[in-house]
């Protein structure tokens, strides 16, 4: 989903002289497996898909909380939390702004007739519309993103930097120190 962001992050990390050393270890990976299962269920039972997706988001949030010792995961948490608010308050689907979505080269019909298991159409009655997918992002891959997605992308970027053994610490940046985090 974030293929372009991840590729870009790897490119930056390579330019910074990073190399993959070891894969970071995550706690409670089974939580992610459960969420994949829930999303599969959502595909098969589109009518109550919203419930599955809502619970899936809860599990992912729990996974992030268990792994919060790393800063990139905490940034993920911010983004995921904001997106979850939008999804939970809108029946388990992320509303997407039709005005922006029509600029995309994809078929929008699935979303309109409700068969898309992840998205719904943004309307007047949508709750917290400013947290839903409303911003058209033209490149690298054109897509419509939410404000939460900004944090998810930033988190992905930081995660890749850490993966490539060149971590960046936002806390240290904030304290006016060198951004290079302790390895």
């Amino acid at each position: 989903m974030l293929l372009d962001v991840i590729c870009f992050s790897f490119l930056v990390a390579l330019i910074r002289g990073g190399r993959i050393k070891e894969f970071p270890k995550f706690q409670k990976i089974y939580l992610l497996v459960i969420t994949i299962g829930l999303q599969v269920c959502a595909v098969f039972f589109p009518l109550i898909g919203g419930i599955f997706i809502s619970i899936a988001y809860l599990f992912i949030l729990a996974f992030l909380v268990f792994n919060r010792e790393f800063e990139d995961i905490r940034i993920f948490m911010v983004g995921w939390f904001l997106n979850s608010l939008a999804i939970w308050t809108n029946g388990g689907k992320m509303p997407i702004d039709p005005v922006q979505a029509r600029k995309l080269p994809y078929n929008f019909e699935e979303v309109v007739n409700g068969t898309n298991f992840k998205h719904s159409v943004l309307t007047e009655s949508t709750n917290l519309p400013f947290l839903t997918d409303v911003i058209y992002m033209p490149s690298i891959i054109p897509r419509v993103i939410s404000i939460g997605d900004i944090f998810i992308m930033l988190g992905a970027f930081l995660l890749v930097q850490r993966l490539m053994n060149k971590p960046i610490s936002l806390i240290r940046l904030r304290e006016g120190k060198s951004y290079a985090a302790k390895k």
Partner: protein
Amino acid sequence: MRQKNKIGFYIKGIIVQIGFVVAAISIFYSSLSQWEPREHWGVLFIYTLLTIFSCFTPVRNANTIMTVNNAVIFSGILLYGVWVGVWTAVIEAIIIATLVRINPLKALMNIGQLLMTIWTVAYLNTLLKSVDFLSPLISDLILTVVYWFVNLVLVGLAISYFQNKGWVRTVIAISKGFTSTYLLLLILAGVGSRLVEYYGVIALVPMVIAFLTISFVFHHYYDNVVKLQQKVEEVKRFNHNFLTTMAASIDARDRYTSGHSLRVAYWGREIAKQIGLSSEKVDEVYFGGILHDIGKIGIEDEILNKKGRLTPEEYDKIKQHTVIGYEIIKQAGMFHELLPAIRSHHERVDGKGYPDGLVGNEIPLIARILAVSDAFDAMVADRPYRKGLPIDQALQEIRRGAGTQFDEELASHFIVVINSLPREELEKIIRQNGQEHKPFQDAFH
């Protein structure tokens, strides 16, 4: 009085812990509906990016580090209104609360004070706009000062509550470190907002360049300041060690008085503190005490360490140590401020002292202080040939000498100092000698 303080403390507690939180929630809630219109989403998006950027762009100050969030919030208020300011503050709070572990209640109170500041400034902004006789640039300046002031006063209130200190004092204390940089950033934000208003987003380019240049200059400047401070500290430490070593070597020559200089310095410092001298002067008295007997270097060992009575000629020679020490330090070209301590610590207020026979206030204060502590230590310290006097008896002597040998006022202050210290600690200090260097140093710092 105490009762009044207690009531004040409770009122502060209620305002900070409940008032701030309620304000945070209600201002947040009232802004919620203004985030919903379609035309506002783009603004919220841009300000989210700006918030992330500003959260991690610190501007360094001499002692504090400040992020530029307030500038972003301020520009949001000026360009769009209270809802952008609230949004920025909330996003910042979420980022910081997730990234850095903080006490949730304190985080809520902090956002409360920030939202109240934002609300006040935004309210005043609409008021000034409606009156419409001020240029926007001037009204921005007024708002800058209001923002800074309200923010400062509310933060000061919260801090004064948590540290149980006076409100005004806290506000003054926290305003000292960062006011100039804070106002500079807000003024930049105000001007930047107006530029964006007239020229569009392109105006951000010169603004960002200006900001980066300023923070670059600040960074270098304060780096150098910190380095300089470290150097000064180093020199101070060196001086201190140097003088202490010197005192030890003076005392080592005179086997009757080991540790004497350090103790005289110690008592002298206590008196100086008691009479309320500045910390600089207190240090001066201390170092004066350490060096006061340096002239003994120039006295022959046979006289200095002689057992039994000194002949009048020998006694005259001993008296010379004040002048010898004075000459040594004068020639060294350092510690000039200590010269009176060395020359005049054997003067008496009745004019019967040496070397110059000064009277009363002609004797420099530092020397009058050290005269008391020198005499006290000479009386109470043990000598190889006799035990030291009991403390009470020594104090009796000091009291008797007040007005003749010693400055009357200083003598009474000294007695207060000694009586306020627990006897055990006193004994420990008196029995301390130069050999046991370590604990003695600890007792000082």
